[in-house]
């Protein structure tokens, strides 16, 4: 059995510890905001934060999250909208929306490490997140807007 925190709540899990965090979140906890896209850390749809760092939850076994704090899109949203979410809405980023929770989680982590990201930073840190609808230019604009908004506060 392992213990971990998910969105601030203590959890224990005694199932298959090889189960990726993604499926633990979705099928065991019912936190379905985090999406399955590829199962191989190729698309970023499953991006969540482990101790504030972006991880691809489809390839990280629950075992590796023992003692960690996992934050999902639901956790980010529970305290009101994050500036990144607000920017996403202002720019009408989503189309189908399926990848966007992962994009938002990745962008939040990006802005933590690069509060004023260049285009190259955005390319480097967002190119693991695929959007098949093709909302990339709005993602880029929303990240820059969120960066500005966070600078002001």
């Amino acid at each position: 059995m392992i213990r971990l925190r998910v969105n601030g709540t203590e959890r224990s899990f005694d199932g298959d510890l090889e189960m990726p965090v993604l499926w633990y979140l979705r099928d065991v906890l019912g936190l379905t905001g985090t999406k399955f896209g590829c199962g191989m850390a190729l698309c970023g749809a499953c991006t969540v934060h482990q101790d504030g760092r972006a991880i691809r939850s489809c390839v990280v076994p629950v075992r590796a999250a023992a003692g960690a704090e996992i934050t999902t899109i639901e956790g980010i949203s529970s305290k009101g909208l994050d500036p990144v979410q607000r920017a996403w809405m202002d720019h009408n980023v989503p189309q189908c929306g399926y990848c966007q929770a992962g994009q938002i989680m990745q962008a939040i982590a990006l802005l933590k490490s690069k509060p004023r990201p260049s285009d190259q930073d955005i390319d480097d840190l967002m190119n693991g997140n695929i959007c098949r609808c093709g909302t990339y230019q709005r993602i880029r604009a929303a990240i820059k807007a969120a960066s500005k908004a966070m600078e002001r506060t």
Partner: protein
Amino acid sequence: MTGMTHIQNVSRRGFLKDALSGCAFVLGVCYLPSVAHAGTTAGTPADRATFHPNAFLGLETDGTVYIIAHRSEMGNGSRTTLPRVVADEMDADWSRVQIVQAIGDARYGSQETDGSQSIRKFFTVMREMGAMARLMLIRAAAIEWSVPVSQCESGLHVVEHIPTHRKLPYGELAISASKLPVPKKAELKLKPRTAWRYIGRGAGLYDLKDICTGKAVYGIDARIDGMVYASIEHPPVLGGKVKSYEDREALRVPGVRRTVLVEPFNLPYGVQPLGGVAVIADNTWAAFQGRKKVNVTWDLGPNASYNSDQFKKELQQTAHQPGKVVRNQGDVDTDFARGGKTFEAEYYVPHLAHATMEPPVAVADFRDDKVTVWAPTQDPQGVQQSIARELGIRQEAVTCHVTLLGGGFGRKSFGDFAVEAAVLSKKVGKPVKVVWSREDDIKFDYYLPVAAVYLKAALDSNGGPTSWLARSAFPPINSTFDSSARYGGWELEGSWIEVPFDIPNIRVEVGPARAHVRVGWLRSVASNYHTFAVQSFIDDLAHKAGRDPLEYLLELFGPPRILDLNIPGYPQEPGFALDIGRLRRVTEMAAEKAGWGRRKLGNGRGMGIAVHRYSLTYVASVVEVEVDEKGGVHIPRIDTAVDAGTAVNPANIKAQLEGAAVFGTSIARSCEITATNGIIDQSNFNDYPVARIDEAPYQTNVYVVESTAPPSGVGEPGVPVIAPALCNAIFAATGKRIRELPLSNIRLG
């Protein structure tokens, strides 16, 4: 009202509250309002509202308006745009509108969300539904005030008595309006354009906030009480069958319950399950793991001899031979026989997979010879039919709930995965969620057919064509439903058969081909290969003639006119005739905005243009490219002009065309499905790469032509112009002509 309260309780917000506290499993069916009335066709909140003049809307006494979204939302915007048309004609306050997703039900008309047809086919219907409600509310107010109807008008969510400025809110009129007879269509007065509130003004998606907070519910998020999870090992080759299988190791995987044989299809395969062995488990992960441990011996069947390399050669040979003539004008043969200058070229576009971010997934519950299914489907009525046929039950015994779709692009018009869930639910006696892995999705898609295209022109002394011979060979999508089909039919509409050029002699042909993998439609379907070929060929001809490609193209269109094709069987829908003036306008607009011929580009840079019409929408794109020394392709800018008739939701038009530029970039750059011994070679985003943020166009500018023509769809038409415009730009930048996709197979450095 008790029904209403119940509905609110099982709404998706309610579900997510519980999900956040981690006890989602305690709920029954968790999210879709109409679930509570599964099996009935009169069960929507709109139907149960106090005033419900038609199937598409309802008004409560508190002023809440329910509007039905009967088409599927996959990022195309129809769940927002169509209800806004209803709200506009009703003069309803958008902030008081709740959208209700329809189940599959023939009373809404076609729900098959494809072909960019939602706005084109339902704009007027939606207006009439709203206008009907408005008229009845006005009549109810007139009775209330005992004044002539002519003195009353609607305002925002109110009816006003103009002479006295008295107002009655819509909610207060709901009861009296509900007692009035429904007006006839002829009595309805649609608003003049100048009175539109929402039509023509952009709007963000209705689900925007839910999407950005992780609350939006997709097919993969559907869950019902007692549900088990299934992952299916499909036959590796189309038409393969299970000879025998061993599941001992699979059953040892923690969480795996059992395995189930899924019967193979009978031809034509249509939307039947592929067959195989299903692993039933307590969660998705266990099902995936168990599947790896199932040892299946297959009878691979006749398609095991299919090799895409060999097939490509056969298709190219076919495209070189005379095919079935589908359009003939003038006399191409005599013109070619003159012995003047000619130019010929051939083009090739491989099979393409949709790769929707949400793979195929569905939940089905079979009980008492009835099925309730939740699916991210583009075609809920099709799902009803397919499940009914597969299980030998009546279509009315199948209730299909439509979730949000994590991408569709045509893949989710085929409900095979929903049929699988229904079949398995019947076999295991529990609700079943079937989840396809990405590998399943890439390997068992309904691929866009591979195509070989041959074009030949006879040229006059100025390098202008006097004859146009066009031959195309591709496995027809009709063969999905008719195994004997060898020739494409409706695929030839649009850019292939129309030939929007002022050329005296035209012959268009199609050659026979047989599919060895499942084939289906993908975002703009055959225009992906036909527009690529035609628009690349024109650019080639322009350069051969030493002319500027834009000038050459405009000259080739000839003067603005309506092109009456006069081809037997060609669609006669009003507004279908090709308008060369509109084609010219988008071409000129894209070029003008891109600075064609005016903007100096540096070394290794170039611009290319392409234009076409698809599903009544005219699109032109100018792509600017930079090719670096290593042959790396960068796309700093695309300028797209679109004429979709009346722009119902301009914000959505822009979004769709921006997205289409990226989708088209993927097709041009890197998408290719190949097969060896009948088995698809690709499996995931590593070997079926799609454009990422650093490979996509950096900036796509979209310009919407102002028009009062009937509205047409925008989900697809922006895609096919991208590959030819990009390849034409690469030619301008490097002198290298590309006639085969994808670019990843070609060395540019």
